[in-house]
């Protein structure tokens, strides 16, 4: 029997990020194989307050490592504590956000644990956890079992329903920060330039409006009204980000954000495999492209062959009318 540790992720303001709830779901799915309980570890300068947000999810314990030196996330400061706590567990999980992707391989190496990153599913084979991983730009899934005493994995947020509170009240326990190794003395946090946006998080939005290279400098001029009308998050193709039309953290794709909203608009996006790998889990896909042969039409539910500079403003008008009628 072995227990599972969920590493929580906090926002810069010290609140629990929703990514944490997807990691909790992964832990719950893996539980039947290992037979034990799960606990949650929260690290940060206000970890205790954040831990209080996590007592209602059925964890055996919520462990809080509160320390001012954890104010700005740096893997070299976090990994030693996560590994020291993780030693007592059979599986350590987090969300495959940029936080989890940066931190968890380091934790795995410290624990001499095998690692399954960015998993899209978890199943149980007797006492074995089987991790399902997207590979080859979404063209294959691999099912992998890990053979080390401790295992480490991360969950692709779009594939794990966020866990909902199940009641109860897990006890909060304080844990001390473990002194970091030599690596930490050679790395310094300089700044975090957050892209300020009133829009929903790309990973959590119900509707995503994504634009490609075709939008040029008009990227936000064209997409903002549409995103406003639909309360949508804005995404972009690599080409749009590389050209500087959109910031890099909006990139959707194999190597950017993976999204699976209810409704996805691909506007002036050709549909390269790397882009598709990041959005093909969306429920309904709409493509607007002036090239009728664009590959994006091979997977869109609704395709409109049109010049986006005319179609998008017209769409905004029609959506407004539709909304007004619906009341």
């Amino acid at each position: 029997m072995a227990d599972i540790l969920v590493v929580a992720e906090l926002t810069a303001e010290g609140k629990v990020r929703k990514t944490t709830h997807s990691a909790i779901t992964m832990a719950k799915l893996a539980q039947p194989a290992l037979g034990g309980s799960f606990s949650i570890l929260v690290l940060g300068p206000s970890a205790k307050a954040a831990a209080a947000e996590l007592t209602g999810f059925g964890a055996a314990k919520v462990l809080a490592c509160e320390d001012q030196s954890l104010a700005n996330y740096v893997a070299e400061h976090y990994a030693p504590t996560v590994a020291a706590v993780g030693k007592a567990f059979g599986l350590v999980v987090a969300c495959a956000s940029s936080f989890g992707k940066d931190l968890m391989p380091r934790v795995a190496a410290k624990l001499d644990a095998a690692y399954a990153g960015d998993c899209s599913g978890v199943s149980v084979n007797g006492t074995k956890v089987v991790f399902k991983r997207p590979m080859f730009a979404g063209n294959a899934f691999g099912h992998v079992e890990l053979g080390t005493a401790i295992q480490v994995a991360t969950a692709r947020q779009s594939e794990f329903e966020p866990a909902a509170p199940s009641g109860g009240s897990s006890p909060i326990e304080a844990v001390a920060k473990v002194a970091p190794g030599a690596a930490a003395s050679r790395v310094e946090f300089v700044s975090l330039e957050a892209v300020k946006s009133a829009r929903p998080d790309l990973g959590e939005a119900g509707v995503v409006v994504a634009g490609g290279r075709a939008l040029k400098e008009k990227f936000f001029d064209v997409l903002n009204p549409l995103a406003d009308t639909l309360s949508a998050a804005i995404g972009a193709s690599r080409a749009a980000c590389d050209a500087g039309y959109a910031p890099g953290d909006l990139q959707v794709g194999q190597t950017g954000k993976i999204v699976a909203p209810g409704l996805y608009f691909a506007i002036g996006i050709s549909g390269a495999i790397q882009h598709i790998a990041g959005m093909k889990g969306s429920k309904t896909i709409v493509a607007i492209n002036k090239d009728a042969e664009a590959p994006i039409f091979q997977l869109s539910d609704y395709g409109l062959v049109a010049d986006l500079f005319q179609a998008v403003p017209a769409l905004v008008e029609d959506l407004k009318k539709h909304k007004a009628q619906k009341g």
Partner: protein
Amino acid sequence: MKILVALKRVADPANHNKVKIPATGEKIDTAGLEWQINPFDLYALETALRLTEDGKAPKTRLGEVVAVTLGPAETETNLRSALATGADRAIRVDTTDDALDGRLVAAALQKLVEEEKPDLVLMGKQVVDGENNYVGQALAELLDWPMATFAATIKEEAGGLLVGREVDGGVCTLRVKFPAVVTVDLRIVSPDSVRSSKTAEGFKYPYEEVRFAPLPAIMQAKKKPLAVKKLADLVGGATLSSKYVKFEAPPARKAGVKVKDVAELVQKLATEAKAI
């Protein structure tokens, strides 16, 4: 500055439609796929070259770039092309993809780094076939070195680097002191993403992505040193700890309909998809 660059060969992403999974699902069939260096690793190599040259024409190389791969004999083609674009030496660790997992790659690289003692290890943030996004971070931990993952910009400073990392919601800047591990993201190859102390202020590369090797360099690369090592000499009897029990193809997504105009789109989204 001495830089070690880790390169892996992968199936050309443009070939992905040809990725075949036999009905038994025990293995991905790579027959007929074209191989190339993982794009992120090509970017790491380009970054290493930019950090070790003065950018003048003709440029002077200042430093040493060692290209390393773990793979079968055919991967020497990939190492030769790395040498042709400017790397000084290459090392191949003889093995096959089937005999590797992330833990073994990181352990082998750790030993090579301890032998070579570079100031910096540059690698891709992930391979585009296995998509693990693991080896760089694990290597940094094994070495107890600082790391900066997902690098989109690098500025050389005295004794280290200032690295702009693409993270959820923005850009995180870290300062790392040598020796360190840096994994690179797509935008590291923009014309002015890498600022070496040897290039003039405001210097920009005149191309996007990566340089091509001129023909004479391809000929010269044949004479550059390429050492071959055995995996077992680096990792002893260590064995695989990740076992892929099955592969499967993702469910196919069918093309839907083309709508004639915006009005029909809104109507279908409302009544058929019930998405608005």
